């Protein structure tokens, strides 16, 4: 019973190639998520699935298969292998390693499967990256801190997971910003593994060790922890610190008047990647010279920024969502087609 179906699929596929674009209107896309431990990731998947369903309005049926791993690279490679064995049209992955997927992505490409990574860049020549530039993310927030401190002051940094490529790029980004300002002195940099509680602890220790700091560079959920420690120390008005993008934090920010600024890494990146994937599967071609990044395979998405000027408006938009809902943005099919495609 399987052979005829297979033959039909192959025939349909060939038909699709023969008539150029638009002929095939049904795709299966595997979504691989490297880690389940955060609401951001859950929202990322939810938004990607919603984007897939939205294609139905355009007469395109996009089926998604979602698989999660638990931080380990090898387990995620196994997921990709299973996607290949299953014969999906495209794989969109939030990868646990920048380079470890090279061989398995080569296998996927050999079978004609489109591979797109999101949120973290990969070195594979056989994959495309659709997401934000993490280094620009770090630089933007770093520049905000420099400007807010008028280029002068003692600063500490609380970073994510040592050895994680996105963390390394963000660190490179804020260092770049700080190097432009000779008056900024980085007195300490520590790691809190993107964990809110660890971020709070780290901030407490830092405040006890350096009571005279003026600024804090801290990422993602750790920012909520760090700000709590700043409040406990009674220094809310004296310290400028980067923030994050979840509703409950925005509520604190607006209510207590934090001096904060936050680069947005929207959970919608995977949905944007999915829209790009469907356009590519339909035969679309990317504009020439649009790919950037250290591996030359990156399609960078815009990075929204929240600061005093727009925090109130941003909060109004999301205040009815759950506490852990992150500010997001998705590049829709029309926008993607206009921006990225020939």
């Amino acid at each position: 019973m399987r052979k005829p179906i297979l033959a039909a699929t192959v025939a349909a596929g060939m038909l699709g190639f023969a008539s150029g674009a638009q002929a095939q209107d049904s795709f299966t896309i595997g979504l691989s998520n490297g880690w389940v431990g955060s609401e951001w990731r859950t929202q990322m998947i939810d938004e990607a699935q919603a984007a897939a369903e939205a294609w139905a309005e355009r007469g395109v049926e996009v089926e998604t298969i979602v698989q999660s791993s638990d931080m380990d690279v090898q387990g995620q490679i196994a997921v990709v292998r299973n996607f290949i064995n299953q014969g999906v049209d495209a794989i969109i992955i939030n990868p646990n390693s920048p380079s470890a997927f090279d061989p398995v992505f080569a296998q996927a490409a050999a079978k004609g499967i489109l591979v797109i990574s999101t949120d973290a860049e990969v070195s594979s020549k056989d994959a495309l990256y659709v997401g934000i530039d993490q280094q620009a993310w770090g630089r933007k927030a770093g520049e905000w801190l420099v400007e807010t401190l008028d280029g002068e002051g003692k600063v500490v940094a609380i970073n994510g997971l040592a050895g994680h490529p996105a963390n390394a790029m963000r660190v490179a980004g804020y260092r770049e910003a700080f190097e432009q300002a000779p008056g900024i002195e980085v007195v300490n940099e520590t790691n809190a593994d993107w964990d809110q509680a660890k971020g709070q602890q780290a901030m407490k220790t830092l405040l006890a060790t350096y009571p005279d700091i003026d600024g804090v560079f801290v990422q993602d959920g750790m920012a909520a922890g760090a700000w709590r420690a700043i409040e406990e120390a009674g220094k809310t008005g004296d310290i400028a610190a980067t923030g994050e993008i979840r509703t409950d934090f925005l509520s604190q920010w607006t209510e207590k008047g934090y001096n904060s600024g936050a680069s947005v890494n929207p959970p919608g990146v995977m949905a944007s990647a999915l829209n790009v994937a469907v356009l590519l599967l339909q035969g679309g071609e990317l504009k020439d010279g649009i790919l950037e990044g250290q591996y030359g395979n990156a399609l960078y998405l815009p990075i929204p920024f929240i600061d005093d000027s727009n925090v109130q408006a941003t909060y109004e938009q999301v205040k009815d969502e759950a506490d852990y809902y992150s500010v997001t943005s998705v590049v829709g099919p029309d926008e993607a087609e206009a921006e990225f495609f020939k």
Partner: protein
Amino acid sequence: MSAATSGIGPRLRRSTWLLALGSALLLAAINLALQPSFLEPGVMASNLTTFLPLILVAIGQTWVVLASDIDLSIGSTVSLVNVVTVVVIDALGGDAAAIAAGMAAGVATGLGCGLVNGLCVARLRFQPIVTTFATGVVFAGLALMVLPEAGLPVPEVYWRGYAGGLFGVRSVVLVLAAALLLCLVIERTRFARALRASGGQMQAAYQSGVPVTWTRIRAYLLAGFFAALAALCLTGETASGDPLLGGAYALSSISAVVLGGTALAGGVGGFLGSVFGAVVLGLIGNVIFFARLPFEYQTLVQGLIVLAALAGGVLVARR
């Protein structure tokens, strides 16, 4: 129930691996039902590629557990071997000699980690859980020092060779066969008997002249060796270095060992059970994949199946 000289219980206590084999076969049947292509050679090979590193790490963990010790640092050992191997290959220029030197450096690193653990636990009599937890943090820190960030590709011939084979047999099959053969040889040595004696009744073994300290050190050396072997396979699979590569292996290898029927109290069990235990864990991943569960439940269901496999083993063996 009284003397329990007959029945399924005692036999299972002697051949502790039978239960894990049973669970593996059951899961393989479920996998086949969910994924009809399961038995195709290509799919079997890709599954073996996925399972092999955990199989090797679990074999390594088995020797240590048999001596009633434990190695929580084995995952960090895998990471450290991986980064040392790729850095050495890269530093020496990436030709055939460099690859050989890198692999040798990797194995030496694994043995070094095992030696440190063995000396601390057996010689200095530190508590095994705390000690190997601490050395694990040290090895992980060293891995970050050697290669601060994932990357640094290995030469193509390395991973193409690992994905390919020799004389028509796939590399992963050859590695598995070699590892099993080595285990069979080890099981025939005096060391294997001394190991079970040390694990069962350490005091009694010591008093009857078993070289307990040296035996425990050797168990840790074997753990380091098999961790290194697993790391070399992972290097072939991932074609690059990653200081966080091995993190998950400490606990999953212990799960595989226990699923395989080896007692954490030591003395009872063997490598074969751990092999099947690792296969069980791998197949659970597959079944979860092909059952198409909502992703929010995948981790939970995975945990529940592991728990069920463990509980089933205990209940059957007790009868």
